[in-house]
């Protein structure tokens, strides 16, 4: 996937040793956020098409979406080398950001693919 390969989570924030003081480089943070957003959106679209083709209906589709988002989070954490605190300021960002935004795209492409394959 093009989005993953050319987007290394960039830019660490520096952490000062004994005082545990974290400083943020705002620009890099923004870049990382953007990358999360892109990954999520791209995967929701692909996931929507897959769910439609496979014929998921109702609850199964939403469970699939949740699984997909979980996979995305896992992938992002793995890419960040399992030390998310150097790249993001809180766990919530990695796990939950862009969740709802992807949902609408997922539903749209899910409906589309499902209709094209199964109803028509």
């Amino acid at each position, binding site marked *: 996937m093009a989005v993953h390969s050319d987007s290394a989570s960039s830019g660490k924030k520096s952490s000062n040793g004994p*005082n545990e003081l974290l400083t943020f480089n705002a620009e890099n943070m923004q870049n990382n956020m953007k990358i999360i957003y892109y990954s999520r*959106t791209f995967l929701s*679209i692909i996931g929507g098409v897959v769910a439609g083709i496979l014929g998921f*209906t109702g609850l199964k589709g939403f469970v699939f979406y949740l699984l997909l988002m979980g996979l995305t989070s896992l992938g992002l954490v793995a890419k960040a080398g399992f030390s998310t605190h150097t790249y993001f300021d809180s766990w919530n960002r990695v796990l939950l950001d862009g969740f709802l*935004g992807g949902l*609408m795209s997922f*539903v749209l492409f899910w409906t589309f693919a499902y*209709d*094209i394959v199964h109803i028509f």
Partner: protein
Amino acid sequence: MHVGIRAMAEDLVLDTAIRDWVLIPLSVVMVLIGVLRYFVSMLLCSSQTPDAKIVKEGQVILRARNLRTGANFVPSKSFRLRKIYFCNEENGLLFVPKGQVQNPQAQMFSDPNMAMDMMKKNLSMIIPQTLTFAWVNFFFSGFVAAKIPFPLTQRFRSMLQNGIDLSTVDVSYVSSRSWYFLNLFGLRGLFSLILGEENAVDDTQRMMQMGGFGFDPSKGLSAEKDNIDITQHDWALPYCEQRAEAVLRKVIS
């Protein structure tokens, strides 16, 4: 376009022509309109020579904000020095005498350029939406367009099936109007991928931006002044020499 009903199951079999001539064209049209809107907004954005005073104020605010974020990294005396420079009662940069606080909104509306810009943005947003909606309603009403894969309650029936007058049809079968709305919300993500970097600001976000108009210049200065006033200085690098020594040792060895 016919809707054939199989005897036993509740599934409707819909005509392929619906798929070819309704779903796909509608989506394609919406994507194209979004792209068109993006290009038109690029062409129409008039270069506006900014007012020198406003730019100066903006930069002062930025400087004050930087001071606030970096306050813990400068020695205490320097911080106090800078604080006084900004917040001094007589000639501090951020101090605005009461009489001179300008009302930005009045200024904004009286400035013709800005008003034109706002109007253009509003129009470029509303017109394609309205036109497309009218087109959908005119051409594509009165039949079942799609089936959404998850079940909904009966309450949504009036919203989703407004052209279809049979009340026994499952709520999952929706009219093309709801397909239009689904596209409207769902294509946001696609636009942000295609048009790159949040350029595809959709209507809901734009409307929220329009709603909250707090323009920086007016309250900005006094807000920043208050913020700096309450910032405590907490020296963050007390052992910096020791830490530098440790790092250097690690590097050398």
